[in-house]
């Protein structure tokens, strides 16, 4: 029985999609503006597993775990369907299972009943470390060649230069403001962090522990003496500085948002006038006639990028490989990126989107834009920036700190 993804319209669907998007946040350090060691080589040793050398015939079906909207088969909207053509082309029947959070994905993958997962960066390293997913032989995936170089072999989808999946798409967490109240147009995150911000009480922030990274990113630019090299690798002192900044920011915050209908509505009504957002939210708000603009501030931004990974114990590995090849093929990747509201992973997708300006809107081909984006990743005790002399704060500590920040 195929689980139905929620229909597209309505608060529930939106919030589900948003939850998905909210947690569909992948990755770790973007191409470094500086020249620090790539965090993926920080010396954690994954269990020894081998990628297949060659592919056999399809097994007739494949079990996927994915974010809502990543495997549309036309049941939600007959016009939105890239699964049926895949089934026709490969003979692999897709059994899809939508997950609402990264943790749900990790737990579903650990049952061993699924072949592939669209893991976000806050799940991918965990899946690799626990031996749940296997390395991927990218030479068996013809469409991998078309993927933007800026997405390949990153800390959240590879370890020690070995690829553990194929990139699905990416997006940045931008700064959005209402043009009628926020003047002049901001170009820095200081507008949401500075204690003297004139917009106190109307500032919004993203309601997740991972938002601590946004504060760390701001401190990277404003307090270089803290020595933060990667916003996801924070030792005690750096972490405390970020937490203090956020506790101070709480006085300015009107509300924390985690689902996107909520943020669209807050910007439309003027309850929020400035704060962190996603491109897709800005698009919806603009379509609803809200006077908003977005920018990638000069300090850079955090972002998300998802990876399709294959289970180490996959029962249908051949179909899983066929699916990965399909979902990053120019046409399907264009469809999913447009449906979900993100930048596609395949460079050839840009010519195939229904909206010719889609890639421009989402900066898909703009590597300088993404070079300023630090993709979300799971903070772990082992510092992701390569430091070995200190212990970094892991995600459970981030979560507790977030509870304390909100008070």
């Amino acid at each position: 029985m195929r689980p139905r993804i929620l229909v597209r319209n309505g608060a529930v669907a939106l919030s589900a999609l948003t939850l998905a998007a909210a947690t569909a946040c992948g990755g770790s350090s973007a191409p470094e503006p500086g020249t620090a060691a790539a965090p993926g080589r920080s010396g954690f040793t994954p269990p020894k597993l081998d990628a297949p050398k060659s592919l056999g015939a399809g097994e007739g079906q494949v079990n996927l775990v994915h974010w809502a909207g990543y495997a549309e088969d036309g049941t939600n909207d007959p016009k939105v369907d890239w699964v049926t053509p895949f089934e026709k082309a490969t003979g692999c029947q897709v059994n899809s299972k939508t997950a609402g959070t990264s943790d749900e994905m990790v737990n579903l993958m650990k049952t061993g009943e699924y072949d592939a997962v669209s893991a976000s960066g806050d799940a991918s390293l965990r899946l690799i470390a626990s031996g749940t997913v296997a390395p991927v032989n990218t030479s068996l995936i013809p469409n991998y060649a078309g993927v933007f170089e800026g997405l390949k072999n990153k800390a959240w989808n590879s370890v020690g230069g070995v690829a553990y999946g194929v990139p699905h798409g990416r997006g940045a967490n931008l700064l959005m403001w209402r043009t009628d109240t926020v003047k002049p147009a901001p170009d820095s995150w200081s507008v949401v962090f500075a204690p003297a911000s004139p917009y106190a009480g109307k500032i919004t922030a993203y309601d997740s522990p991972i938002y601590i990274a946004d504060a760390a990113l701001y401190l990277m630019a404003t307090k270089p003496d803290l020595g933060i090299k990667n916003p996801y690798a924070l030792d005690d002192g750096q972490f405390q500085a970020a937490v203090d900044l956020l506790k101070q920011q709480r006085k300015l915050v009107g509300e924390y948002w985690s689902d996107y209908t909520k943020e669209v509505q807050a910007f439309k009504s003027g309850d929020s006038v400035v704060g962190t957002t996603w491109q897709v939210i800005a698009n919806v708000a603009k379509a609803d006639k809200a006077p908003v603009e977005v920018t990638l501030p000069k300090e850079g931004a955090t972002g998300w990028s998802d990876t399709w990974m294959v289970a180490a114990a996959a029962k249908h590995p051949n179909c899983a490989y066929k699916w990965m090849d399909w979902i990053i093929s120019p046409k399907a990747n264009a469809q999913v990126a447009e449906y979900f509201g993100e930048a596609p992973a395949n460079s050839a997708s840009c010519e195939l989107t229904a909206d010719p300006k889609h890639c421009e809107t989402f900066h898909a081909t703009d590597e300088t834009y993404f070079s300023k984006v630090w993709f979300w990743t799971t903070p772990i005790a082992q510092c992701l920036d390569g430091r070995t002399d200190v212990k970094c704060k892991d995600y459970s500590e981030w979560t507790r700190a977030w509870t304390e920040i909100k008070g």
Partner: protein
Amino acid sequence: MDQGLDRDQGLIPAAGVPAPAAPAVSPPHGKEPTLNTTATAGRAPRRRLAAFLHRHAGVRLSLLLSAPMLWLGVAYLGALAALFVTAFWSTDTFTGDLVKEFTWANFQDLFTGEVYRTIALRSVGVAAAVTLIDLVIAFPMAFAMAKLASPRAQRWLVIAVLTPLWASYLVKAYAWRIMLSSDGVLGWGYGLTATVLTLSYLWLPYMILPIYAGLERLPGSLLEAAGDLGARGWRTFRTVVWPLTFPAAVAGSVFTFSLSLGDYIAVKIVGGKSQLIGNVVYDNIGAANNLPFAAAVATVPVMIMLVYLTAVRRTGALENL
């Protein structure tokens, strides 16, 4: 009595077949037992079973109670026990696996962290405020329904009270969000007050119905007697109505209090930047995958509810649920 028992017994062996009455009586529908041999063959063991059950009250009772007891024991108490046990474990933060070794760490964090105390007290405050607001609104409403409305109007009023329950929780919460937003009808903004308001609206029917049921059982003659003896409205309420409906009000408060105590969605939608216990549990499950700590936090509302229910039991309110 016998008929009732037979009906029950009929449910156990095979539902959907008319149950035999006591063996001496011919079966219903005027069917002769000897009319159809296969039917008789099929019925004989059932009859024996029915007779056996009739003779062994203990077996009958245990069969009847097995399903609810199983549910209570396994699905409910079992789950609570599992929750409590989990609270003493920890998580390997990197692989996300449970580490099943006994540790007090979660409870230490919970009791030493000032923030959790604040949040727990805030949640209890919100739950108490919601309960009081609902009580104040629900009592006059229920009184009007039970004592003043005509029987026909009563039926419609009950339907009217139940109607909001047909709409989705999320839709109602979002409606409040839009009303409270700065350009909305009310425009009061978001925060704890907005949360209390929204929750009071959401749980009001759960308070009205038990009080309505309690007031319906209150004999009208008592009100008349109070009036005949010279009591005015307030005094009648204080000395006659309130003592007799107090258990019903407490029964309603169990709903409003427990539902508010566990809520984490309404506060996300209209709470601005505030958080309640439910949000802490949710963050630890949804974001950090730290089930043991989430379990430890979740024992707090369980304990609060246990204390509350113990206090409630003394009032005899639970008989009215």
